[in-house]
């Protein structure tokens, strides 16, 4: 009966190569020749010439001939074929039972290796994408920048809060001033790395869904509740719940939120069981909540509960030279993102940055620099690279209020619809911002959108 290893090798189409104690190739079969096609075969050549992967393992190769070792294995040797494509070989060396030689078995595992390669590639690409863009974006953009007194006050307060992980914080400031960033900084500086940071924009959810989202629900609590679901409060247990645009929360929900904050417990929709929660609340708004209280659209008791610590983020126009500092940080950020090497701004561009009033604050500045970085080909941003929104001058504001009806007349409803669409477009779909542009409350805007059938 033939050696079973040879039978297996033949059946499985393994290449076979025999060598002796001097590491000289004694025999090589057709499959092994084919698998090692790119390597020059010399008569009585060394096995390490044929398989340079064995350099450094010569002692083990000899011990295998002497039957002092059981096997030696290397997986996924990369070899280029005649077309230059990588083929993958597994190598297993075994002692020959009936001779003073050892046997190398070579298996072509290219198909499996390519699947493994594709899986690794996808995994690593995703990781690298996050590492190179998001991580660096986070690194670059994860701190509030500035040397002005206003910014230093903000940073000082955040640093003081880093020792207290329970105090409720109210962040005030115009849209685009970095309230979200401040919330993250407060969370990261005062919580452990594992503590969750859960964020919800109170203006983004329909009124009827907010309660289910915040407090969760039990199976069967309402028609579509086919499974129980924990709410955002539970998701944030042990960490921070960031309630952005708290001024948009409907009055009914404000009462429930106050109850949860005071009792530190909640009941899911459809449940009678009370659950304890340990969550720090950070709320943010661009509204004047005192005025909202006076207008009876925000609960006074909730306001007092929220503003244990209040931080007001200053608008960009009040930060003086910090504008250039922040703009420079965005240049670094977009250099990474767009693989560019822009160094900074020309003197004219600096002057333009300082002269602009930045109604959209840091968000507007970021967009402005991003736009410039996309199109720039040199290594310095010049004045003409910056597309700055035209400030609404007193004249323009006055003109808007002095519109007159033409002799042919107008359709007031159509004009209103057109203005709402225009505001939504300018605010990039952000209803709160669109409402601000129109001088309406968000609720009024929503009512008028429904009236005109605007989605």
């Amino acid at each position, binding site marked *: 009966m033939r050696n079973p290893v040879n039978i297996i090798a033949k059946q499985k189409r393994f290449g076979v190569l025999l060598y002796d104690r001097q590491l000289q190739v004694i025999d090589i079969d057709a499959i092994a020749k084919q698998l090692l096609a790119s390597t020059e075969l010399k008569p009585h050549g060394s096995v*390490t010439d044929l398989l*340079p*992967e064995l*350099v*450094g*393992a*010569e*002692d*083990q190769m000899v011990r295998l001939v002497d039957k002092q070792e059981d096997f*030696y*294995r*290397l*997986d*996924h*040797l*990369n070899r280029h074929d005649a077309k230059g494509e*990588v083929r*993958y070989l597994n190598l297993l060396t075994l002692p020959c039972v009936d001779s003073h030689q050892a046997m190398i078995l070579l298996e072509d595992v290219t198909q499996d*290796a390519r699947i*493994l*390669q594709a899986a*690794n*590639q996808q995994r*690593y*690409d995703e*990781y*690298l994408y996050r*590492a*190179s863009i998001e991580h*660096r974006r986070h*690194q670059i953009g994860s701190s509030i920048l500035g040397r002005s007194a206003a910014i230093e006050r903000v940073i000082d307060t955040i640093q003081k809060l880093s020792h207290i992980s329970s105090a409720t914080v109210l962040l005030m400031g115009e849209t685009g001033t970095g309230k979200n960033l401040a919330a993250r900084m407060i969370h990261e500086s005062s919580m452990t790395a594992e503590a969750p940071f859960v964020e919800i924009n109170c203006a983004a959810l329909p009124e009827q869904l907010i309660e289910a989202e915040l407090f969760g629900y039990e199976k069967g609590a309402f028609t579509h509740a086919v499974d129980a679901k924990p709410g955002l409060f539970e998701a944030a247990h042990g960490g921070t719940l960031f309630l952005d645009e708290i001024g948009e929360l409907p009055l009914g929900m404000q009462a429930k939120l106050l109850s949860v904050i005071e009792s530190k417990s909640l009941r899911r929709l459809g449940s009678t069981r009370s659950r304890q929660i340990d969550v720090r609340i950070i709320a943010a708004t661009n509204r004047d909540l005192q005025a909202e209280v006076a207008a009876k659209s925000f609960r006074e008791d909730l306001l007092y509960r929220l503003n244990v610590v209040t931080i007001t983020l200053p608008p960009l126009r009040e930060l003086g030279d910090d504008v250039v500092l922040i703009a420079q940080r965005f240049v670094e950020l977009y250099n990474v993102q767009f693989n560019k090497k822009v160094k900074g701004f020309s003197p004219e561009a600096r002057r333009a940055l300082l002269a602009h009033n930045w109604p959209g604050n840091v968000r507007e500045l970021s967009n402005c620099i991003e736009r410039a970085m996309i199109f720039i080909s040199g290594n310095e941003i010049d004045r003409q690279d910056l597309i700055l929104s035209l400030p609404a001058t007193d004249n323009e504001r006055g003109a808007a209020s002095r519109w007159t009806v033409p002799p042919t007349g107008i359709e007031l409803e159509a004009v209103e619809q057109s203005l709402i669409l225009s505001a939504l477009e300018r605010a990039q779909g952000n209803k709160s911002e669109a409402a601000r542009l129109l001088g309406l409350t968000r609720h009024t805007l929503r009512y008028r959108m429904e009236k005109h059938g605007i989605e």
Partner: protein
Amino acid sequence: MAIIKRKICLLGTFAVGKTSLAQRFVNDQFSDKYLTTVGISVSQKLMPPIQGEPSDGPIQHALLIWDIAGLEKFDPVVMNYFRGASGALAVGDVTRGETAVELKTICDKFLSVNPEAVLVTIGNKIDLAPDGGEAVSDLQQLASDYGSELILTSAKSGQRVTEAFRLLSEKIAWRHA
């Protein structure tokens, strides 16, 4: 003059630029496209002669460069990748701090198999962080722990790549003198 074959390994976690360093050194080529390595790819390069001990005369190394896939486990087969190496370039990515931490684990495993091997530490991708990246201080510490040098390289531009391989070749020659 004697030509001595020496096996050296490129060590490091995934995507630190091991394949690119080998490609730059052996073929003077660079590709921006990242293709993850599976298993091992061995390439060879004949080094310039090195003056050994005066009594021995100059020697010349043929370096067998083992480009090893970024490893996540260290089973016996993986340890075979390391076996018999005279030295290694320990490669970190200066822009990714975690690569220095993972590199230490890999180096410890490598030296457990080859206690006599010499190391040269590489901080690669310095072109992406000309003023130094977040991993540089950790790589400096790692180099110091292993009694090796830290060389900041760019496989993309070729900056200090040849120097790193030459230094390793010289250290191997001195170790075996």
